[in-house]
C-alpha cells in the first residue's frame, strides 16, 4: 500500500516535470519574429525605392514643390505590388511637412517596418528633409 502511494507520487512528479519541460520546449521553439526576414526585405525595398527616387534629385525637388501626389504615384511604381506604404516628411526642425497623407492603403497592424531617410534638394536654395517610410506587406 505504502509502496503504491510512493509510485503514484513518482508518476505525478514525472508528469509535473514533463508538463513544465514541454512548456519550456514550446517557449524555446516559439517563433518570436516570424516575419523578420520579410521585414528585412521590406526595409531594403523601401530604402532602394527612396534612393532610386532621390538619385537625380527628383525626391527633394518633389518635396520642395509639395507635389505629394506625384511622390505617392512614384512610390507606388517603385514598390512591388502588395506593399502598403505610408510616408511622412519632416523638415530640419522635425516638423511634418506633408499636408496630406501619402499612403496607398491603411497599414495593417502587424509586421510593419519603418525606414528613415535623409535627403537634400538639388536646388539653388538647398533644403534638408527627413523621410519616414512605413511599409507592410498587404494581406
Amino acid at each position, binding site marked *: 500500500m505504502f509502496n503504491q502511494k510512493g509510485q503514484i507520487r513518482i508518476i505525478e512528479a514525472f508528469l509535473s516535470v514533463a508538463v513544465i519541460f514541454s512548456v519550456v520546449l514550446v517557449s524555446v521553439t516559439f517563433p518570436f519574429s516570424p516575419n523578420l526576414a520579410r521585414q528585412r526585405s521590406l526595409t531594403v525595398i523601401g530604402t532602394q525605392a527612396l534612393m532610386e527616387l532621390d538619385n537625380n*534629385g527628383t525626391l527633394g525637388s518633389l518635396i520642395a514643390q509639395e507635389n505629394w501626389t506625384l511622390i505617392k504615384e512614384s512610390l507606388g511604381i517603385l514598390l512591388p505590388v502588395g506593399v502598403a506604404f505610408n510616408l511622412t516628411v519632416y523638415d530640419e526642425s522635425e516638423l511634418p511637412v506633408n499636408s496630406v497623407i501619402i499612403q496607398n492603403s491603411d497599414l495593417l497592424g502587424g509586421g510593419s517596418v519603418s525606414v528613415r531617410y535623409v535627403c537634400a534638394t538639388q536646388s539653388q536654395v538647398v533644403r534638408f528633409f527627413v523621410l519616414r517610410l512605413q511599409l507592410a506587406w498587404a494581406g
Partner: protein
Amino acid sequence: MTQLRRRGKSGQILLIAAFLAASLLLSAELYVFDVGRFSGEVESVSLSDFVLAVKLGSRHVVVGSLANVSNGGSGSVLELNLQGWASVVGEWYQFGKGVLNYTLMDAAPYSSGVWLYWGTGGYGVSSAYASFTHQLSGQGITADQSYSMNITSSVFVESVFQRIGGNRKRVNVTVDALNEAEPALAEQLVIYYRLLGVWVTPGAGSGYTLFDYGNGTYLASFEVIIPAITVEISTHVVDGRGIYVSANATSVET
C-alpha cells in the same frame, strides 16, 4: 490515515501547480509575442544604406550650392549648406553616433571649394569640390567612409562665319555642354555676339536657328551685319542641374 490523505493530495497539488506554472509561462509567452507583433515597428535602416543615402545627399548639396554660386550667389554658400547637411546627418542617425566631416578644396584654381572660369578662349567651367569623411559608430559597429564630390559643368564653344555680302556674315556656333566631362543636355542656351561693344542676342531678322543634336552638342546659326573681320561670341548655358556656365569665343572666317 489523515497523514496518508494529505500525502496523496500533495502529489495532486504538485501536478496542479505544474499546470498553473505551465499556463503562466505560456500566457506570458503569448503576451510577449502579441506585443512584439503589433507594436514592433522595426527601425532598421542598415548602415550601408544610411551611408549611401548620405553620400547621395552630399552630392545634391554640392550641386545645389554650385548652382547658387554660379548664378551669382555668395561664395560661402557651399560651406554653409554643408554645415547644415552635416548637422542634419549627425542628428538623424538613430543607431549611435554619426559624424560627417567635410573639407572644401582650397588648392588653386579652387577657392572655398568653388572654381568659376568663364574664359574667352572658347572654354568655361563651373566646378565645386569637397571631400567627406563619414564616421558611424554604435551597435558594436564602426564605419569610416571617405569620398570626394567633384561637380563640374563645362562648355566648349567654336565658331566660324562666312561672308555673305558686304558686312553681312552667317555665323555658326558649335556648343558642347558637359557634366563631369560627360556630354550633358543644356536646360537653357543663349548666344550673344558683340556689336559696337555691346553684347546682343541675334534678333528676329537674323534667321537664328538652334539645332540640338541630343548629345550635348548644339549648333546655332544666325546672320549679323558687322564691319569687323571677326565676330565675338558669348555662350551662356544653364545645365539640367541649374548650374550656370559661360564661355566666349572669337568667330573666324572660313
